């Protein structure tokens, strides 16, 4: 199995763990991740404004590279995934945006949303299968783990189509696959406070701590996430006393490639 792989900027600096362990786990599971050539920042956040084209172009370039390689595009950072998947949806369904983006890029073959974008979690669930991961686990993680989805993985569900936006199960199923016990906490799909970590820490504190408190009350020994900013907020602003880790790190540990 071969996929184009888009790490994103944060995974090259502050969130190296998310990237490294995604690669090593993929290798252990027989999946080849080929990093997209000369990728650029995804744009960080997706803008819903109809008249913002420029901020969507870098995502389109990434999508085009994957199309030219003839492979599906795998992302692992929840933020990048949200941006790229939504831009892809625009290129598919929003004529206004796609015409302008294509005019601007002047590519040989205009891009019309041909690439399939999947998150690393979807790769694990739909392409490899949690059952097969269970079989490949060498060191079962016998812990009680609370999964934090945040908003970017799930919403808007009409575009992301990863899971039920209000009752998701993909991370819990993942937790079960690596031999751990999922703890379901309140506010697992509510916002962590996001970029307010920069401008207004009190907002980030209030939002993150709701989930952290609920998880710790429910006996979680660890918190799992797929987003570097969520991880930061839960740790720094949510005051988590239990470890907050990327899901890829735990996967690598379970597969014995950490």
């Amino acid at each position: 199995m071969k996929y184009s792989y888009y790490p994103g900027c944060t995974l090259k600096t502050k969130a190296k763990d998310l990237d490294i362990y995604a690669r090593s786990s993929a290798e252990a599971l027989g999946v080849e991740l080929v990093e997209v050539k000369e990728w650029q920042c995804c744009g960080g956040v997706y803008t819903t404004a109809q008249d913002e084209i420029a901020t969507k172009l870098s995502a389109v370039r990434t999508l085009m590279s994957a199309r030219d390689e003839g492979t599906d595009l795998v992302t692992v950072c929840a933020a990048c995934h949200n941006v790229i998947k939504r831009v892809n949806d625009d290129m598919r369904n929003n004529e206004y945006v796609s015409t302008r983006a294509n005019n601007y890029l002047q590519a040989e073959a205009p891009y019309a949303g041909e690439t399939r974008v999947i998150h690393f979690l979807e790769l694990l669930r739909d392409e490899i299968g949690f059952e097969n991961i269970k079989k490949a686990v060498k060191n079962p993680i016998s812990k009680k783990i609370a999964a934090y989805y945040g908003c970017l993985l799930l919403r808007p569900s009409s575009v992301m189509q990863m899971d039920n936006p209000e009752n998701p199960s993909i991370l819990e199923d993942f937790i079960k696959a690596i031999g751990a016990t999922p703890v379901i906490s309140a506010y697992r799909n509510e916002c962590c406070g996001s970029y307010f970590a920069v401008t207004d820490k009190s907002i980030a504190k209030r939002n993150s701590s709701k989930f952290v408190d609920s998880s710790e009350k429910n006996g979680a020994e660890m918190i799992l996430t797929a987003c570097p900013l969520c991880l930061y907020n839960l740790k720094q602003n949510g005051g988590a006393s239990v470890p907050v880790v990327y899901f890829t790190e735990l996967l690598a540990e379970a597969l014995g490639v950490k």
Partner: protein
Amino acid sequence: MQKIGVFICWCGSNIAATVDVKRVAEAALHEPGVVYSADYQYMCSESGQTLIKNAIKEKGLTGVVVCSCSPRMHEATFRKAAESCGLNPYMVEIANIREHVSWIHKDIEEATEKAVILMRAAVAKVNLNQSLTAGKSDVVKRALVIGGGIAGIQTAIDIADAGYEVDIVEKKPTIGGKMSQLDKTFPTLDCAACILTPKMVEAASHEKIRIISYSEVESVSGFVGNFTARIKKKPRYVNEALCTGCGICAEKCPSRKSKNEFNEGMDTRGAVYIPFAQAVPKLAVIDPTACIKFKTGKCGLCERNCTAKAIDFNQKEQIIEEKYGAIVVATGFNPIKLDGLEEYGYSQNADVITSLELERLMNAAGPTGGVLLRPSDRQHPHKIVFVQCVGSRGLRPCDKPYCSKICCMYTAKHSMLIREKYPDTEVYVFYIDVRTPGKNFDEFYRRAVEQYGVHYVKGQVGKIVNDGGKLIVHGSDLLMNEQVIIDADLVVLAAAIEPDPTAKSVATMLTASIDTNNFFTEAHPKLRPVESPTAGVFLSGVCQGPKDIPETVAQASAAAVKVVGLLSKDQLTCNPCVAGSNELLCNGCSSCEKVCPYGAISYITKEVRRGDFRRVAFVNEAVCQGCGACTVTCPSGAMDLKGFTNKQIMAEVDAICK
């Protein structure tokens, strides 16, 4: 040559404001065959019709064109008028200059020009019209009611009381429908069972009513007055003639894991069971998916304990074929599935329930014996939140775009009953609008607020989370302009209602139409609300749109009257616009027979000329519905459709393109 009169209606100002009616009348006189034209304010009125009748008599008209509203509106009126003074009704044609001209165009010049062309096309057609005589067909004096809820029961009783036989086909093992699951009914708070079960018994004991329970209509053929239905009777594995409904089998059954449908899955029942104490017919039924005997071949405890020897594991599906003159659809509704509305956490929390589940929790025959205990820990809830419009009035794929109509009232009922019985309970109702149009309805809702102190909060709930066993309800209070957070013990969702899933297949079977929400469409939204557009098919209850019990019963009786009106006739006048074959042209190729959806065409050997016997198509005019499929298929042009002949349509085309 025809002598045609053209009559232009003003329809008050509906037509006359945009169409220069005088000019149309004047233009008509230049058309071939037209000998008279007139315009009048309201052609459909008594005096307008008299104008037409006088003209027919005085000018000796052989054809009439009325330029007015849609033929779907008044074609019958004008044809009747013509008939009353001796003109064949099928010599009358309508040019639709209201719906197709004056109401959609603003420019008088343009509209008048179009009206003239439509008039011209109608005149061209009438020039080729021929007198038609409708045939007759016999009426089978029996009715079929599909669905045995309160709607179906009421319709059946009313038809039966008028002296006609009725079959009720119910897919569940018992009749009674949703109403049998309700505890009390608004606005009078009578107990649902107390008013419903006597009706169920009345239906069962009525000599003209036959209840075919645990059965589904598989197919329907025929037409108004003469339908044939195939009814599939599912095996109960219990001999209906022998079973006494004593319930020993249900008591002895060792399988206890099946969800009890009657209690909305909040308790369990055996694999052999009687749906509820007042079930009609009161017979046991075996659920083969749960029965140990069916699964393993061993057990048979029920069989051994049945003193009536009614258990029959070898029972097979049965097909009943019956003829009916009329069919009533009363397929009812269900609350929607809440998978797409998980912000309310229905599947994640045992204590988030639907209103129908609450009905069972409050009912003396329910899983808690009528004591309000929440499902998770069987504790008495002290703070209850009701959420309105769950899935109603929304545009997302998980939502229904319509108002479910009954929720405001049953929620007022629930909150009132809870406050009455458990005054220590705080009740909050999140609402967007409170809709209480109905006799004594608003007074009822106000009582909940004023007398019972129910907290009505104007705003919707956005999210319900379970934080360590407490349900945290995040709602908004729009009047306070605040977000309110309530830690509730129990949350009750007023789930939208939708037509029963069988509605779609029933509609297809009956060629009755349904709307985008799968509600049956009525023949006219105001004037024919209980008839479907398909002749002989009538609508009763929620299958046509959301309704409460009083409305359902009223509509059920209205449908019954329509059925009785139909069944009281010995014969029906057929549509004379049917196909007919020109025997001289027909070569007996059988093409037409293959496309006929009604099997109206057969072949006879006929002497078409002296000594020349040939196989030619023969149309059964009582069966032909006049679709015209055969006319286009016929390679030799022998088949034509009366009232819509090739020549007539060609003439219309020519007139329009001229």
